[in-house]
């Protein structure tokens, strides 16, 4: 049997995560002798995909809250449990991985009760690996989760909780029917996108797709639209019939907005078009992915790409390189700044390069997050240190149990994306978990820090930083770059500057010795190959002016705490 049967992408299997939701229908013969139809939705858990998770929850009657018996309740567990409660779902707590020696079901139970206020006396103890407790879980679903309600005679209302693009069939929507019925051949109308489509097929997944004559109240299934544009089938939108439209859409739709932006540049100039095509292909399946062309003096033509978060960004970058064979250079991620100019105009900034002249700026606002961190009490101090350093404002703290403290902060998103999660994990021996949501825009004293190589500013290395941190970050980045940029035939001064004022300066010394290996009979062939390889290696570097800069230099800013 294939493991991780619902996580079909290579990247999901390798990382053990879920990126795309999946729906499955199974029939279950319960101990009472009746056959029940279960519609299950497997959702992502990561904070980047919070909106998708909320839509999946909205499509359900109940949720199984899975808590890892070795890890206990994590920040993500809290966030997702809150969402399920807000959606008025019946919650069945399930404690998984009880087969592992390190499992502590009593602690997990205590945390569920104290931290989430969910009664955990009947929590199902389970090992998905050995199968222990699976029967109990299915019986619990039968008895605790209510059957769907809805009006079969009302106009169709079906909630889109995910969609994907199929090269042969166009956009396929995963839906939950709330009212009415949808059949093959129906003309449907997407209420938020205001688009129409002809239903080419409906069906359910078991988990392979089975075409059905219709989907009716309570059914979860797929719907083939034939549409070529993913933006017309948005997660959270309501599908109704063109001929018999519902008066109100289902509640909860919102436009997904990217939070994190990065410049993606092909290393070889001739890959610009292939990169554009690859982004278009991925976007068919991922309407949250947005981009605009960007031109850098240093890196040439590329795209400024917006993502839901850092995981989303990593996944997309990896898929572009892996599935499309592209060789990409990514600049450090940034957020969307709001720059208010003295003339009253507001500019949304996705890239440091777009920063207006300091003289034109009245003030700048940046996005803040409300951040919830769950951590054992011993590590609260470490979290305080790290987060205060990242301009975090402490909001409050409470004990979920004797072993878990919840600390709430407000901090700038721009600080979160500078490797904050990794730092948090390493400063708490991996115990901390984290969840966040947008808390709005706040004014900040921000400046653009420029990096100059051999006296020339390199646009792709500039970043926006709080003015109090500019000196420190500039100094650290300059010394990081000194390590990363290989020695060249001449000295390369590296400077960090704000508005022409140099804050830090270091120098990559000139190279003194190449390999002087022996070069006798057979060595000559080897030497030829070595020199060819050296030429290839240079291709992987970007020549900026006369300086050869390796790709990782553009991500060096992420390592400012090292």
């Amino acid at each position, binding site marked *: 049997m294939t493991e991780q049967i619902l996580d079909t992408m290579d990247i999901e299997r390798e990382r053990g995560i879920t990126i795309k939701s999946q729906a499955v229908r199974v029939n279950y013969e319960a101990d009472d002798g009746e056959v029940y139809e279960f519609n299950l939705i497997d959702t992502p858990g990561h904070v980047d995909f919070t909106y998708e998770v909320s839509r999946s929850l909205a499509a359900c009657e109940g949720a199984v809250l899975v808590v890892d018996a070795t890890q206990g309740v994590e920040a993500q567990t809290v966030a997702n449990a809150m969402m399920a409660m807000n959606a008025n779902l019946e919650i069945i707590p399930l404690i998984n991985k009880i087969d592992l020696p390190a499992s502590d079901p009593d602690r997990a139970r205590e945390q569920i009760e104290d931290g989430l206020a969910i009664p955990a006396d009947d929590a199902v103890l389970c090992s998905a690996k050995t199968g222990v407790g699976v029967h109990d879980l299915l019986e619990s679903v039968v008895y605790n989760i209510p059957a769907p309600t809805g009006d079969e005679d009302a106009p169709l209302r079906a909630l889109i909780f995910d969609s994907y693009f199929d090269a042969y069939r166009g956009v396929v929507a995963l839906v939950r029917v709330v009212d009415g019925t949808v059949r093959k051949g129906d003309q449907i109308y997407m209420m938020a996108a205001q688009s129409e489509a002809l239903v080419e097929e409906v069906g359910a997944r078991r988990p392979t797709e089975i075409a059905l004559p219709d989907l009716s109240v309570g059914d979860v299934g797929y719907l083939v639209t034939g549409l070529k544009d993913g933006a017309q089938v948005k997660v959270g939108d309501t599908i109704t019939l063109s001929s018999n439209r519902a008066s109100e859409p289902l509640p909860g739709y919102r436009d997904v907005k990217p939070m994190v932006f990065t410049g993606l540049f092909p290393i070889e100039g001739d890959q610009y078009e292939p990169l554009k095509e690859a982004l278009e292909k991925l976007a068919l399946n991922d309407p949250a992915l947005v981009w605009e062309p960007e031109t850098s003096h240093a890196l040439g033509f590329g795209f400024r790409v917006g993502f839901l978060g850092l995981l989303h960004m990593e996944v997309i970058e990896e898929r572009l390189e892996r599935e499309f064979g592209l060789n990409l250079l990514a600049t450090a991620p940034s957020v969307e700044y709001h720059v208010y100019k003295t003339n009253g105009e507001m500019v949304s900034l996705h890239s440091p390069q777009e920063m207006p002249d300091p003289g034109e700026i009245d003030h700048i606002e940046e996005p803040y997050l409300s951040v919830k961190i769950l951590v054992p009490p011993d590590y609260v101090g470490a979290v305080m240190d790290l987060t205060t350093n990242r301009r975090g404002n402490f909001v409050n703290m409470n004990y979920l149990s004797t072993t878990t403290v919840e600390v709430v902060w407000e901090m700038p998103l721009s600080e979160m994306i500078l490797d904050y999660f990794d730092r948090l994990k390493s400063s708490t021996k991996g115990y901390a978990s984290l969840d966040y949501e947008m808390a709005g825009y706040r004014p900040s004293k921000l400046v653009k820090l420029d990096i100059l190589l051999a006296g020339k500013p390199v646009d792709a290395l500039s970043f926006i930083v709080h003015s109090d941190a500019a000196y420190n970050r500039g100094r650290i980045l300059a010394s990081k770059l000194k390590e990363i940029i290989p020695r060249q035939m001449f000295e390369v001064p590296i400077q960090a500057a704000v508005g022409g004022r140099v804050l830090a300066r270091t120098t990559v010394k000139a190279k*003194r010795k190449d390999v002087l290996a022996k070069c006798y009979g*057979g060595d*000559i062939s080897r030497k030829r190959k070595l020199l060819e390889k050296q030429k290839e290696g240079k291709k992987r570097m970007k020549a900026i002016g006369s300086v050869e800069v390796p790709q990782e230099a553009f991500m060096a800013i992420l390592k400012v705490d090292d």
Partner: protein
Amino acid sequence: MPHHPYKALYLHVPFCVKRCGYCDFATRAVGRDSAEIDEYVEHMVMDVRRYAKQGELADIESVYIGGGTPSHIGMARLSSLLYALSVSLDLTREGLEFTMEANPESLDARMVRDVWALGVNRISIGVQSFDDDVLEVLGRAHDASRAQAAIEEAKQRFENVSVDLMCGIPGQSADSFARSVAKAIELGVTHVSVYPLTIEPHTRFYHDVMAGLLDEPDDDVEADHMELAERMLVDAGFSRYEVASYAKPGFESKHNSSYWTGVPYLGIGESATTMTQNGERRMRVMNGEVVDDLDRRQMEAEDLMLGVRMARGVSDERIARAAAHVDGVDEAFLELQHLGYVVHEEGRMKPTKLGWLCGNELYGRLLDLAP
């Protein structure tokens, strides 16, 4: 293909008493008594005789037995090989250079006398260092006193004795390296090769560096050592005739120089490379496999690249000949002059010290004329 006559002959002995930590050469640790060595030498002898019968050895001007460790296989086997060579080509020919490599642990007075008597006239000893601590780091099978004794024994018969020294070894101070260079000078050798340690893949050193057990050689330290060696050896009357080779006047290695001057060479034995060429084509073959197949343009570019390894560089005539076949030769040399890697002196383009230190840039630029 019809080809120009071979002028240099290389014989490879791929056996050592033990494998050193940095070594990625074609060699393996094989006990001295192993029948494998007998069989191997027998094959070499047959190859030598076969090539002689085909007339391929008639123009040989230099012979080099390298390894591995030729001295490791013992005098009996060396005798049969040297005897085969003596009846296959004219070892007494005026100016013929005949080098044998030896390691201190397996070179004794008897072997010195016998190989000399059988025609070897140059001995190259793998000393690497005269510092016991450094030798231990390298994993060599000898110590400093054995190295000194081997050189003194070699000097009993050989006027032309070369030693190899290494620098940039983890734990080796500039002082330790300087003492090794001084020792070589003091012992009266006529030729010294100086190499910085390089960490090659698939070696013990490579794994140790990757595992953080061993410090990677530092470029600056190696560059300092190379400069130190040059100062000391030049003061002692040596000239640096190639980037890594120093010789007393008249003791430049003829065999090694042939590799850098486009002279065809024949290799016998495992992993020995043969370079065969005529006016239109140059091929290198190793273990029956063609590893390089160059056309006229590539040959010209390669000769320029190899030429600037040597202090005398390449002559204006040589450059003009290359320019007749390859575009951009003059521009490349102008650029290299501008960068300070070569200077034009006495009708020749000669490498500068900077050019040598940054050799890959210099060689790469020339090889790139006809990739």
